């Protein structure tokens, strides 16, 4: 039975075992509204977001749950905020490890340490460390909960997509299951099938960018050592276990260790447990007891598709863009794709917005992908200098960093993943010069404490009219939407983050909690016009 859909990798959590669907016996292919290919973090989050918005979705994956193995580890604040909107953040926060202190070493010297010192007044920390399979499991738990509350989400394990045939107003899929093949039609297809995206391949679309000529050995080790919960990064470590090395804490006494091995290596040999142990022993020092939990060797690339929308097919997550992991931007940026896409597709499907709104997904998330690729590329170039002169400058920076704070600002072992601001987006409405730049149109709303909780939790699922020291009706109806008002008191955080020098403020906030437009007072016509713009009606 499994021969028709063999496992390509081991599964850590079996979440959606294969069950035969009536669709498989239908005489003619059943037409679905939205089909998602891939049940990694991005596919699961997409299903969850759309399902909670009432959009019927079918998710297909050729496995039955979360893949085992060492991949994503650091999940950023914005990801947690989005997962919170999706009802999944609580367990992530409970299980995840929080950290604030990082140390940077060169050879055998501690160059400096830093504290992330997250800004106060946010519900979520800057980062948590959590193994990717757990992240996926918590998203799945939230799906099960949403299903129980009536969200029309269907997950189909051991359903492998083998062919994709686009038509003007739908897409036909050939799917293989343990019971043999079947066909499905869908109005919209979202490809979340990962960096090797078979869907992308079937459509003959390119995926261009840079491959970094370096191998990284990722070893997750289990140990009870009392290293502090900090991120330790070595350039050219004295223990000679690699050209760079990273030690980072995960839940369950697991530590993530990365060794940069160089380009010309014998992968099989490097993966022999005895050889991995040699490197780990040299790093941890004598007498430290540990078990190897999971090890693999990766090469990294930075690349993206030219367009994320191809008619009725939308690409999200690693299928659309791939970055090196320095700065933890892979899954974190994919979750922002979901955040951007789900509300737009929902409004297109119910006829509130024109189909062209989806082109803004393409433009806004390409903007985000380019920012992530730029940041990851710069970090990779700093960590793995490609020319002698680049190495000369890199090491000069490290030498200076031990004594001179200015040089520490140049040291780049991965810049923390922060969400991108959609500057220049066609959806952006008017800005106001007296208000803080960080909340200009296109920006993700910074969180803040508000009466009874947190600002981001107080924002609705749809658009919100947020007012500070300004009169406005309790709701605004325009362009087929009713936008509720959220009136905020002028706390120090709200003033600093949203008011600036203005005496009062009115913000139109998008369903993905990005600012659409802002004014210093309410004007019905202006709000309606900005809403039309944010719906792509121009």
């Amino acid at each position: 039975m499994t021969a028709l859909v063999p496992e390509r990798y081991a599964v850590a959590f079996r979440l959606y075992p294969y069950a035969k669907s009536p669709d498989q016996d239908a005489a003619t292919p059943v037409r679905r509204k939205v089909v998602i290919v891939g049940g990694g973090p991005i596919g699961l989050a997409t299903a969850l977001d759309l399902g909670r918005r009432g959009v019927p979705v079918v998710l297909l994956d050729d496995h039955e749950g979360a893949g085992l193995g060492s991949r994503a580890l650091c999940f950023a604040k914005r990801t947690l905020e989005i997962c919170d909107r999706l009802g999944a953040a609580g367990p992530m926060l409970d299980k995840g490890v929080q950290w604030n202190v990082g140390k940077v070493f060169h050879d055998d010297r501690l160059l400096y340490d830093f504290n992330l010192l997250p800004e106060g007044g946010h519900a979520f920390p800057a980062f948590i460390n959590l193994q990717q399979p757990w992240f996926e499991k918590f998203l799945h738990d939230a799906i099960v909960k949403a299903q129980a509350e009536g969200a029309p989400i269907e997950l189909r394990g051991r359903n492998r997509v083998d062919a994709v045939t686009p038509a003007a107003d739908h897409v036909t899929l050939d799917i293989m299951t343990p019971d043999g093949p079947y066909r499905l039609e869908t109005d919209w297809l979202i490809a979340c099938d990962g960096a090797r995206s078979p869907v992308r391949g079937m459509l003959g679309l390119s995926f261009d960018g840079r491959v970094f000529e370096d191998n990284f050995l990722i070893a997750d080790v289990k140990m009870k050592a009392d290293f502090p919960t900090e991120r330790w990064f070595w350039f050219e470590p004295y223990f000679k276990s690699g050209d760079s090395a990273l030690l980072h804490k995960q839940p369950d006494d697991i530590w993530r260790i990365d060794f940069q091995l160089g380009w010309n290596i014998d992968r099989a040999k490097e993966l022999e447990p005895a050889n991995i142990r040699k490197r780990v022993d040299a790093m941890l020092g004598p007498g430290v007891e540990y078990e190897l939990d999971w090890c693999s060797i990766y090469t990294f690339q930075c690349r993206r598709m030219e367009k994320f929308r191809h008619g009725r097919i939308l690409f999200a997550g690693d299928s659309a863009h791939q970055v090196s992991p320095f700065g933890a931007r892979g899954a974190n940026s994919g979750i922002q794709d979901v955040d951007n896409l789900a509300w737009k597709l929902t409004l297109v499907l119910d006829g509130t917005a024109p189909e062209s709104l989806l082109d803004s997904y393409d433009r806004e998330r390409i903007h985000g992908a380019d920012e992530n690729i730029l940041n990851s590329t710069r970090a990779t170039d700093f960590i793995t200098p490609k020319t002698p002169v680049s190495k000369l400058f890199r090491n000069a920076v490290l030498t200076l960093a031990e004594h001179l704070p200015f040089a520490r600002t140049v040291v780049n072992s991965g810049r923390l993943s922060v969400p991108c601001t959609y500057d220049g987006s066609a959806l952006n409405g008017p800005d106001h010069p007296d208000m803080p730049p960080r909340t200009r149109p296109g920006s993700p709303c910074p969180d803040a404490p508000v009466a009874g909780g947190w600002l981001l939790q107080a924002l609705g699922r749809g658009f919100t009219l947020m007012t500070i020291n300004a009169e406005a009706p309790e709701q605004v109806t325009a362009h087929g939407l009713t936008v509720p008002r959220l009136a905020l008191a002028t706390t120090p955080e709200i003033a600093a983050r949203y008011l600036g020098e203005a005496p009062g403020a009115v913000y139109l906030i998008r369903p993905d909690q990005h600012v659409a437009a802002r004014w210093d007072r309410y004007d019905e016509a202006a709000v309606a016009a900005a809403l039309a713009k944010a719906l792509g009606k121009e």
Partner: protein
Amino acid sequence: MLTTTPNLTRPDESYAALIATHEGLSEAESHALNARLILILMNHIGDHAILTDAMRLARDPKGQG
């Protein structure tokens, strides 16, 4: 704006000091020192536009930046 008109208060002394700083260093050590020196001066200047003007001029002295 990048200053390209004469600006050194004591040109001969500054130049001699630069050469003297390298005295006794191997070629590799000299390169490393130069790199550190550039970084220190970059920080002193600070302004990104001036720095990139200087880099362009260094790459192509005939181009006048």
